[in-house]
């Protein structure tokens, strides 16, 4: 019985199957919002309101011809997409949706799993870098260099801002942090600054405007993804969608109070809270323009990092006050 439960957890929900459906739904949500902000329609044709459009895109890409460039490192080039998808899917398992018991730590919810999720979310950046590097295309190399340059900018503020609520809640376990904020809802307001910083940094991690520099279409053709086509590109795009869901889930678990309520209510809770975070991400995407990579680094170190440190100080003060 336990193995059946684990299997359902891994494959159906919230495992691979649910992840596939839900991440394509989030991509549709993002695309529709982005289009409506720009006074256009967005996907409308496939399925009711265009809901099946991202799934259709995925299957179309799977059917296209897969071209590997002559001089590319074939092993790494081909292995990277499924590897990346595996990494972000694993990160999804650690979100506290079901299958966790607040009293006992389990395989997917243990002390320190917030650090593991953050680590697993940094790995896709290196996967993008390796993808661009092993393509041996001029544009891919520039895109790969840009990915790493951006990493210098946003990684530190992201870590600081996500860990501040953990400091306040006195635990490194996502489920406990969520439970803490459910008990003391007013303390969510203390973390408002770090919520904003985390939103900006997550936008940079997901490489969306204003930080979509590594795959800037008008400057370096495709950036890191220039040489990818067919099945590999389909897996990369799915990986980016899943990464968006995981990052939104992380932010919702840490800042918005987690997903309580058992089987059905918990899932609905999860959907609503992640869609709220994605709404904010789409808003940022639609209202800004791309900035240069040196401006990203200077912006992060001049504004984001000091503000994140400030937030940490505020948290420590409040913690001293309430205890």
């Amino acid at each position, binding site marked *: 019985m336990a193995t059946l439960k684990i299997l359902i957890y891994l494959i159906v929900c919230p495992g691979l199957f649910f992840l596939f459906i839900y991440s394509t739904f989030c991509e549709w949500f993002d695309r529709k919002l982005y289009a409506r902000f720009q006074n256009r329609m967005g996907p409308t044709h496939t399925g009711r309101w265009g809901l099946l459009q991202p799934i259709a895109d995925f299957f179309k890409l799977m059917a296209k011809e897969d071209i590997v460039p002559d*001089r590319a490192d074939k092993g790494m080039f081909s292995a990277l997409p499924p590897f990346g998808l595996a990494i972000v899917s694993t990160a999804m398992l650690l979100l506290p949706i079901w299958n966790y018991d607040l009293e006992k730590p389990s395989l997917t919810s243990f002390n320190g799993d917030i650090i593991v999720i953050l680590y697993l979310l940094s790995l896709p950046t290196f996967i993008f870098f390796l993808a661009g590097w092993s393509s041996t295309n001029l544009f891919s190399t520039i895109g790969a*260099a840009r990915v790493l340059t951006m990493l210098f900018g946003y990684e530190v503020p992201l870590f600081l801002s996500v860990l501040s609520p953990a400091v306040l809640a006195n635990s490194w376990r996502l489920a406990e942090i969520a439970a803490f904020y459910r008990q003391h809802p007013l303390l969510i307001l203390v973390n408002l600054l770090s919520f904003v910083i985390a939103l900006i940094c997550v936008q940079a991690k997901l490489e969306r405007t204003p930080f*979509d520099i590594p795959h800037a279409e*008008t*400057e370096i053709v495709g950036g890191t993804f220039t040489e990818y086509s067919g099945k590999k590109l389909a897996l990369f795009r799915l990986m980016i969608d899943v990464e968006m869901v995981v990052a939104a889930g992380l932010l919702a678990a840490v800042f918005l109070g987690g997903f309580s309520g058992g089987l059905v209510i918990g899932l609905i809770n999860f959907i609503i809270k992640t869609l709220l975070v994605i709404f904010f991400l789409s808003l940022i995407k*639609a209202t800004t*323009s*791309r900035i240069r*990579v040196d401006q990203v680094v200077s912006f992060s170190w001049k504004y984001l990092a000091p503000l994140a440190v400030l937030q940490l100080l505020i948290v420590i003060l409040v913690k001293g006050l309430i205890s």
Partner: protein
Amino acid sequence: MNFQIPIGPQHPALKEPIGLRVVVEGEIIRDADLRLGYNHRGIEKLAESKTWIQNIYLEERICGICSHSHTTCYVQGVEKLMEIQPPKRGLYIRTLVAELERIHSHLLWLGVAGHEAGFDSFFMYVWRDREIVMDILETISGNRVHYANNTIGGVRRDLDELQVKHILDSLEILRKRSEFYKNLGTKEPSFVARLAGVGYLSKEDAITLCAVGPTLRASGVPMDVRKDDPYAVYDEVPFEVCTADTCDVLGRTVVRIKEILESYNIIEFLLKNLPAGPIAVRAPRRPKPNEVISRYEAPRGELIYYIKSNGTEKPERIKVRAPTLGNYAATIKMLKKGFIADVPLIFAAIDPCIACAERAVAIVDARTGQEKVVPMNILRQSSQKKSANKERKREVEWPL
């Protein structure tokens, strides 16, 4: 480590093929080079074998966005050769279409600048308003580009009351929205951070490298053919030459937005003072042997035509210098100090309308870095030879 990056001939940043080769070190550009000839159609040679009226059709197709500029410049020159003067109403309608074209071209450019900078929302909004201008042009001439409104001796289609009212109403909407873009384009922080300081061209450089159009005016030089050498009815219409003195892409944006607002005023003046009368006079078949220079302020800059006739019904020589060609020397200078991220912006800021050479393709050998430019037919032949012996793959059949 020095890298040579080819921007073009096929690149998402370029709307038309041009070979731009930049040598970079990291993200900074050290050197730039320009390779023209991807869009050459031999129009100057072709024009020598067509009659004067057929040439209007030919010159119009040099460019889609500034088609009216080419025909007006040509027709002005031929009218001087034939010593005829078109009637006032015809000149007013000609100027009206010219200003409408200027508005639609500048709105197009604003959208493209937004897209190159990554600001897609701006791009979508501005192009939505450009549709209003295209609708006006379609009501007047029946076509969204290539209006075919000019003929030697005047214009071909007249305006009536309903059309005038439609234009004036649309102008109200456009004016309100253009004020919004003026605020957005110059005050939105991430957009301005991309545009300010990019593509710097000092005043002396702009003059010595013979730049034209908004590129020149954004460096503070008030040269505008409509003021210096008035043609059509520009000596009767009150307007100002728009300049900016920041000498960078932000200045060029500001100059173009100001020109849009000026054009709204000019169109209102024209429509309110439209004289009655005929719209064209009859033109003779052959002009006397003579030569003439015709200049015009196209949306991209100064357009100059040198037309020489030898008394027959075909011209002896037509020399066209499109404004973008004049800006290339300045572009190379501007590229030399920038970042790669700025290349599409700098190049888009001169508003390129690349229309001057034969169809050819550059092949870069990835192993040796050598580059050859070969025409399309040879490329096609070599690719056919290569794939002739491969067996065809079965296409994937989907049940969908």
